[in-house]
């Protein structure tokens, strides 16, 4: 990230055009198919990932608290099971993190982008009225450029 550019872009962003926020229909986005798909898929992943890691950590915690004899068993040339189980927590945490990042980049990010693209095109009040159509087209084109610029930035 070139340091100067981001800072300048950010300063520009702190002074939005009046009414920019209010022109988005959030409920409509929330009901849209893309959005529902995004949250459903992300929630499914998060539920599965949480279940796996917290069950594994819970089992480890319960064993560490209650099963001292078992944890002290020497395995694989004299190392205690407690050490291997603790290390497995690290590897599991790494694996889940990696899986989420991969999933987010491949599946969630494109959906987010599509929803953001359509936010200007379909869900603003600009798009509602015929007499605003020209203005809306302009806004849409502008939004596309912005989104493209954002894409470019996040790609880096």
């Amino acid at each position, binding site marked *: 990230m070139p340091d100067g550019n*981001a800072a300048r*872009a950010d*300063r520009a962003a702190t002074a939005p055009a009046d009414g920019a926020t209010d022109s988005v229909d959030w409920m409509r986005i929330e009901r849209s198919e893309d959005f529902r798909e995004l949250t459903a898929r992300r929630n499914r992943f998060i539920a599965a990932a949480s279940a796996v890691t917290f069950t594994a950590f819970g089992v480890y915690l319960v064993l560490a608290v209650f099963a001292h004899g078992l944890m002290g068993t*020497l395995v694989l040339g004299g190392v205690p099971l407690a050490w291997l189980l603790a290390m497995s927590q690290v590897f599991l945490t790494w694996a889940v993190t990696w899986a989420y990042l991969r999933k987010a980049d491949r599946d969630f990010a494109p959906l987010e982008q599509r929803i953001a693209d359509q936010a200007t095109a379909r869900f603003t009040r600009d798009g509602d009225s015929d007499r605003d159509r020209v203005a809306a087209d302009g806004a849409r084109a502008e939004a596309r450029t912005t989104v493209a610029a954002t894409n470019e930035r996040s790609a880096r």
Partner: protein
Amino acid sequence: MTLVLAAGVKTLPLAIFAVVLAGTLVITYWAAKRTSSATEFWAAGRSVTGLQNGWAIAGDYMSASSFLGFAGLVFLFGVDAYVSLMAALVAFLPVLLFLAERMRNSGKYTLADVLSFRLRERPARMAAAVGTLAVVLVYLVAQMVGAGVLIQALIGISFTPAVILVGAFMLLYVIFGGMLATTWVQIIKAGLLMTAGVVLTVMVLAKFGFSPGQLFTRAASEHESKEGFLGGGLQFDTKLGMLSFGIAFVLGTAGLPHILMRFFTVPNAKAARGSVGWAVFLIGAFYLMVMIVGVGARAILGKAGEEATGKGGNLAIPNLADALGGQVFLAVISAVALATILAVVAGLVISASGAVAHDVWSNVVRKGREANEREEVWVAKIAAASIGGLAILLAIAGGSGFNVSALVGLAFCIAASANFPALVLALFWPRFNTAGAVTGIVTGVLVSALLIVLSPPVWPGADTVTGSPLGSLALENPAIYCIPIGFIAAIVGTLLGHEHTERTYHELFVRSQTGIGAEGVSDRFTRKPRARRGAAVATQVLPK
């Protein structure tokens, strides 16, 4: 300086530490020239990359207690200490899965930004500022006391000047260099810490022919309780206490304001989640090394070395370094340990300055109207100086007698039972409202403080469990009670309040999930600071 350099100063560690300090000053000078606006001050201009932020989170998170403290606990208690280490790492999964991207998508500088999105701005910001300041102040005092004790032991400067020295550098970084300087101090410290970890691990393993089996056998034979060292049961008085300790870490991390603030320094949500990925990798790798190094300290220093490692085993690593590599290596490791503290306290102070200047001053005192950025940054610097100064005074007043681990426990308890419930409920519960946030945060802070005061290590004149009025229910770390109480208070407060915020819930939900209108990402739909509430009702667009 002559006063500071009184009797017993160890020149070699001091010289190496001075080199590290000089390096951080150069960074601060460089950063100061690039820091003037509020975004630059608190969020480093949102120019930090995911990789850099990952290192900085690792540097922000791994305090001296991660390095010296955890290794010391492994030295003293064996595998029991692994539980705290793993809890501290697993804690990043809730941050990754629930908070990192959503914070970046919906906030600006502080966690109050996320709350005030849906709730009445002034009470919500006040409550969030209370939660942030409570965590920061307690954690800061703990770190300062720890720093004073360590510097005294490692360099020989006595407690009070040592605390002032650490405090002065912390304030220099924050006031002049803002978040950019803080970030780079954290990155460099994380680099030093990882290097020290690798070197120590390799040296320990080499001593035992790279055979972990030999290492563990030798270590266990040097402990009074061979079975306990390898199997557990030594560190905690009660099983409930051990569970509670683990839970405090797992949920407390997700409510630490100085960690959450780091997500505002990156350009977008992708970088935010990527930075957690790097942080998890680095912290996990470091904890793997701490597990080995702690056992190595037991194997090499042995029973005979227990006396010299001090209370809590904090000096196990320095003594191990001395045994492995002599005076020079000891000096290097000491300097790394001290750099570790500086990076953490700087991160804490800058998050507190955000709570005071951005939340309280600009949005509560100035009501978001007259405040301008220049003023906000000035107030932030004054706030940083005041909070830092207060922490220095408290640390000196309490002296080395302050129970550091009780203070750290308190900080994590408050984070887990005040900040964490409010954030989670704001992001995921449509019914949540201002009354709930305020009651939840205030209750979380008070209950944590009360239960810590009643806890066995703090309650006066009673080191035994039965000494506390709570009897055998008193825990060293009461998180297992505080967290449910914090959540219940927030939920009950919400249901008693009549305010409904479902409308803004939908906006926050969509924004946090998609990143539409996130600060500094796209200039379309950036949230207007004022007049949101009335407008939100008007937004209910007619069906097409």
